[in-house]
């Protein structure tokens, strides 16, 4: 009988089981010497697939896994994902290019994204962008020669009350000043992380007198 499931490719329990059962013999990878992306993350991928009744829903989560692996999504990872989800390569490619958070080319170890939308611009995001350009000697869309930093100028990141702000890899840095920016860049260079990143968001913080009221 005809059903939507047959059209949109419902996830079958067998798919998940066969994936979880190592090794993935059905998949042939040209680069035989290296572990394939699917093998490397098979448990995580099986977990992701189990959340959705239709396999294609796992596409964006799987692309994130691929991006975490290499810093960008490689063509071979895209092909592996397409094969696993029974999609054509263009279906994967059209999706990945629609969303701004996927990199198709390598980016620096620290990907700096500064918000330039109106709310941040009102409180000086353009100045922050200039500081970064001068301090790192790169323009938007470029990386430093040592491969450490890349700069992107992006649209709103939902931190309008605490602008100007930027995101570096997974972390938000808000209420930026030149001194703060210098410290963040120095911290990242020396330790790879910075204590100035935002924690669970709350702004304004309750004043001491308001606490417990």
């Amino acid at each position, binding site marked *: 009988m005809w059903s939507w499931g047959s059209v949109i490719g419902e996830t079958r329990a067998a798919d998940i089981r066969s994936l979880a059962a190592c090794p993935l013999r059905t998949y042939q990878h040209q680069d035989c010497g290296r572990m394939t992306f699917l093998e490397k993350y098979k448990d995580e991928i099986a977990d992701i697939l189990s959340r959705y009744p*239709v396999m294609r829903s796992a596409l964006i989560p799987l692309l994130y896994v691929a991006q975490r692996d290499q810093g960008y999504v490689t063509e071979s990872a895209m092909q592996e994902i397409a094969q696993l989800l029974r999609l054509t390569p263009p279906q994967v490619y*059209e999706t990945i290019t629609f969303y701004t958070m996927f990199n198709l080319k390598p980016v620096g170890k620290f990907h700096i994204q500064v918000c330039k939308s109106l709310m941040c611009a009102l409180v000086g995001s353009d100045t922050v962008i200039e500081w970064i350009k001068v301090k790192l000697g790169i323009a938007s869309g470029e990386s430093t020669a040592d491969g450490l930093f890349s700069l992107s100028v992006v649209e709103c990141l939902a931190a309008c009350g605490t602008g100007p702000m930027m995101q570096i890899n997974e972390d938000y840095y808000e209420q930026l000043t030149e001194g703060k920016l210098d410290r963040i860049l120095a911290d990242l260079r020396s330790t790879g992380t910075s204590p100035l990143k935002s924690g669970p*968001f709350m702004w304004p913080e309750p004043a001491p007198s308001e606490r*417990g009221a």
Partner: protein
Amino acid sequence: MPKHELILLKNMMQPGYTGSLTDYEKTGGYQALRNTLGKIAPADVTTIVRKSGLRGRGGAGFPTGVKWGFLPKDYQGPRYLCCNADESEPGTFKDRQLMERDPHQVLEGIVLACYAIGSETAYIYIRGEMVLGSKILEQAIGEARVAGYIGKNILGTGINVDVWVHRGAGAYICGEETALLESLEGKRGLPRIKPPFPATHGLYNKPTVVNNVETLANLPHIITRGPEWFAAIGSPPKSTGTRVFCVSGHVKRPGNYEVPMGMTVRELVYEYAGGMRSDKPMKAFIPGGASAPFLTPAHLDVKLDFEHVAAAGSMLGSGGVTVMEEGTSMVWAALRLMEFFYHESCGKCSPCREGSSWLVQTMRRILAKRGRMEDLETLLDLCKNIAGRTVCAFGDAEVAPIQSTLKHWRQEYVDLINEAEAANLIRPEPVGKP
């Protein structure tokens, strides 16, 4: 201290409140769930929510109980709840606080909503950039699963609800409910033509409800304290409850302020947000995120509820109030927002895809002092041909900054063009790709 009771932000204002399950339970958390599951019929939960007058907090302001009521009653098969945590409207940052500081409040709302609509699966579609928020939610879901509030056979009632966090990947349009569903299905986030509405043909073509984070976070309180209590807050009968307003821009204390709906902009900006940051007076404000038309200080006494803001010629939208001081160029401000919309147009409908590019180029030309007087007519003509001619409301949103600034501050455009004409720079030179 606020002169009114906080509902959504109350817990997180307590000293030492971490948002963990123990903390949430101490404040009476998950009591609404205990008192509802198996004790109140799902249809009655919908009735309670309808009576409370709760309206969607994401932007459109559609009554939540009514939305739930659209689901087919006799449908056998899965239904879905999607929590819209995409929060990508410039000027809005309330959901981030609700999720990162008090995740269980949102989760309890999600399970209650699932119970009311008969759904066993809920997806939280969180915007991709909020990595911390998604981690906090996943941890909270883990805690709730262990405690038996989420998962199979919740609290021994035989009811199953599974909640999954699904990260988006940086597309503004995915905050539109049908685009969100497309994205959740692993496709490009292009809005669908309505009807059919998600209530009948939503995620995987199944009946689906999409609700905003703040909407869902209100549910435990409505259930516990009754719809009459909630309906008396704010400016009844049409705008009930509180609203978390996100104040940004040139004010002393920007941030999230939860106030009853119907408060004036003046009170919100000057009493809560501390007034203007310098001695410059206010020039303009946006009452409901980037999609809402600009208003002038003449509208400071407009009440912040759905009806009054609409009557003033704008919309309450997502509650992002952005304030601009005297000296801000309105042409520049409108262009900044226009650039945002140009960047985020999904490309499905030609008027929006092409129109946003033309609008940006024309605006850039005017701001670069190379404009001509006919450009103003061109702008308005373009706006007229975009708004209302697209699949989703994005088209109406993207023309709002230009139409409203041209309405209130036309002289600024004219001055820039006059300067261009005086300097004989009217030959339109290419100002680069948008």
